[in-house]
């Protein structure tokens, strides 16, 4: 399982953001994850506290925005929902589609517990 590697990379980024803003600790981290990113939100939640241990992100909350799988059909132009293993157009059923969302693995926001401790 690579979710621990992903969380370790996430925490490195979060700690860098905290350092850049002179913050002592991190309160909340928000990420966006799509089913086609190849990472499992439940496993990310388990791995997150382990990756945070001993860093300024220790004790922070992980928020996961699960992004829906959406495709646009190259034939009929419809934008529809799809399943991870059936990226077919929901309108005409053709497979020539382009993924609009669902493969994200993004650090969206870091909430720093900055001022209270700095003052």
């Amino acid at each position: 399982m690579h979710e621990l590697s992903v969380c370790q990379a996430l925490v490195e980024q979060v700690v860098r953001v905290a350092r850049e803003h002179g913050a002592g600790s991190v309160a909340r981290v928000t990420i966006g994850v799509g089913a086609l990113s190849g990472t499992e939100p439940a496993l990310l939640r388990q791995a997150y506290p382990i990756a945070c241990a001993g860093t300024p992100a220790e004790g922070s909350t992980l928020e996961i925005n699960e992004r829906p799988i959406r495709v646009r059909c190259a034939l009929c132009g419809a934008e529809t929902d799809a399943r991870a293993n059936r990226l077919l157009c929901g309108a005409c059923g053709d497979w020539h589609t382009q993924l609009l969302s669902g493969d994200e693995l993004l650090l969206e926001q870091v909430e720093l517990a900055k001022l209270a401790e700095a003052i």
Partner: protein
Amino acid sequence: MCDSCGCNITPGNRHLVAEGEPGHQAIDVLQHLLSANDHAAAHNREHFDRHGVLAYNLMSSPGAGKTALLEATLQALAGEFRIAVIEGDLETENDAERIRRHGVPAIQISTGSACHLDAHMVHHALHDLDLDAIDLLFIENVGNLVCPASFDLGQHRNLTLLSVPEGDDKPAKYPVMFRAADAVVFTKTDLLPVFDDFSIERATRYLRELASAAPVLNASVRSAQGLAAWLDWLRDDMRALRARIAGGEAVRPAVQPDGAALHAAESAA
């Protein structure tokens, strides 16, 4: 629903309230979670392009025949291209030794417990290879149909192998891996008469249902059936990649994790 305990905060509206907490500061980042890996991968790709090396990443489940296909390929292409191989496994030098028997340089990466190669491991291995003495680099990823698909290594192409005994519904079961493939090779096709429930047509249909137009090839190392077509595909693909790179294009696998796209935008800025 009330305004005191937080029960009215949902994933959809949380961003509207998060910034309001006293003493807290919300920073919008929008960066791929694996941006450090993507950065190292871009660096590897620059190395490859500068030295005129084409890099193919081979992925499959363990035992699908990656090393066997490589051995047959090395034998057939000896004298035509200068080839090197990076081997990824949790333990042992076995695969690198198999490759070296063909007089081809092979670097073994032992990942320990890691289930995939990442761009840093590949970068480290590149230090042991003379890229000026190579035209073609195969990276044999750790046998695993899940994790390797999430890590860009700097390769130009992803090849995914599916062996007949595994069953023809693997693309439906492991969509992330098969969606990442620039070409899919069905291996051990000499076993089709024995595993008569494997249908190449069905496996291809599952692949198309992932909105993938990747070419499919059949190859049996044991019977040599399909090997010539695989080698012709590889030669044509290398020629096409070289033309695109010569035209100044940054060539990457067709399906990129969104982070790679973000990184490309970042380096262009």
